[in-house]
């Protein structure tokens, strides 16, 4: 994350504060992600990882701080410290380069796998289904589910559903992919196929922010690892140094528990 020139910064968050009622969940987060980075965020449950991720694409709104995506402002901090979002249309446009994969997949159950992939390009980008279809089929081949294209999501395993969800997000050609514990809802024997898809994506230099409990993924596929606890970033670094020689006591304790 060092030595970033301005034009390859994909995501920049500064001094992010976020509370739910009286509970302060994010206590001043600063974060930069460069093009092609794979940032793995780890930390105990309830530390604010999901909230931070969801602030990036405005599923949650921050109280103060600023967020820039691909050099474009999503929310700025006013002189009196309040967060001020850009208008709805601009926000939609800024966020159009982001895609998200959820823990619970959230596929559209009333549409087939292929229809799930076509939906956003056709409805949002107003492209014709005939034009998008080959791209969607190619994405399904890539995640190994081409032969399931006419199935409804309810007939797929969790691992297959999550791969469809990844393909659905990719169908919008995002530049940044956000993953919120993509394998946590899966049976252990099904996590492998999803992680494999994510590793392939990382190998293609997709910019990714991944909240995960999969230490092997963080160690091997991430370019940066960040440890969060109680709404702050406790420690971060390259996977090599982070896992070999963690410096903070809380990081050490957490890693000992995980391994």
């Amino acid at each position: 994350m060092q030595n970033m020139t301005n034009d390859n910064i994909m995501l920049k968050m500064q001094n992010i504060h976020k509370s739910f009622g009286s509970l302060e969940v994010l206590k001043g987060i600063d974060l930069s992600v460069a093009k092609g980075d794979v940032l793995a965020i780890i930390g105990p449950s309830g530390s604010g990882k999901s909230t931070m991720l969801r602030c990036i694409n405005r599923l949650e709104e921050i109280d103060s701080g600023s967020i820039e995506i691909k050099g474009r402002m999503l929310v700025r901090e006013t002189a009196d410290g309040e967060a001020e979002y850009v208008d709805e249309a601009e926000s939609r446009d800024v966020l159009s380069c982001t895609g998200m994969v959820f823990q619970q997949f959230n596929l559209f159950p009333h549409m087939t796998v292929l229809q799930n992939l076509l939906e956003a390009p056709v409805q949002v980008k107003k492209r014709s289904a005939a034009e998008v279809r080959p791209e969607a089929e190619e994405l399904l081949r890539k995640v190994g589910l081409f032969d399931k294209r006419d199935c409804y999501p309810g007939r797929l395993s969790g691992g297959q559903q999550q791969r469809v969800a990844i393909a659905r997000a990719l169908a919008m050609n995002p530049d940044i992919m956000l993953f919120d514990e993509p394998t946590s809802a899966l049976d252990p024997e099904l996590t492998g196929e999803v992680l494999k898809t994510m590793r392939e994506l990382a190998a293609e230099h997709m910019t990714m922010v991944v909240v995960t409990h999969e230490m092997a993924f963080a160690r091997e596929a991430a370019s940066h690892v960040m440890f969060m606890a109680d709404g702050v970033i406790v420690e971060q670094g390259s996977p090599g140094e982070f896992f070999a020689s963690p410096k903070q006591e809380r990081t050490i304790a957490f890693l000992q528990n995980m391994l």
Partner: protein
Amino acid sequence: MDNLLHTIMLMLEGTQITLEIFCITLVLSLPIGLLAALGRISDVKPLSLLMEFYVWVMRGTPLMLQLLFVYFALPMVGIMLSDLAAALLAFTLNYAAYFAEIFRAGIQSIGRGQYEAAKTLGMTYPQTMRRIIIPQMLRHVLPPISNETINLVKDTSLIYILAMNDLLRVARTIVQREFDMTPFVVAGVFYLIMTFVLTWAFKRLEAHYAKYDQ
């Protein structure tokens, strides 16, 4: 035998009025109910309150009273409606309110994840409702909609008080004239046939939508 055939022919005419009221009410009240439900859940507070009030009034007073009100009170303020139009107005407003409540509950049963997935794909709120939420909701609400629809078949008999010659009124006229209870039995059978056809149709619909269930 001839007599029974004659009775049945007369009653088929009455059935026409009944079916007319039923079909038109259904065709009007379903979309109006959906719009009312969307208004009820909208962030626009006055709209939401207005829809809540509308549903409260229509569900909180007897349909019979609403019929009489439309039939007798509107002419007093200068609004002249035909018998059929008056009946349709009351039925539609009443049933739309019941459908609105069913749709609202159905929409609110769809998880937040569906909205979030649609939003992260760039879909607007209207797109999300139209493409993602409402199609799923319709499938969930088929059983209660089916119930209300069957109630509607039976409620059409209330227009009896507006002196319209629906199935029930025709039956009563014959009974009074000929001191023969057969028309009531025939009317019962007619209502049963109509509700049976509806039940069957809704079962088919449910089976059709079950294809994407686990």
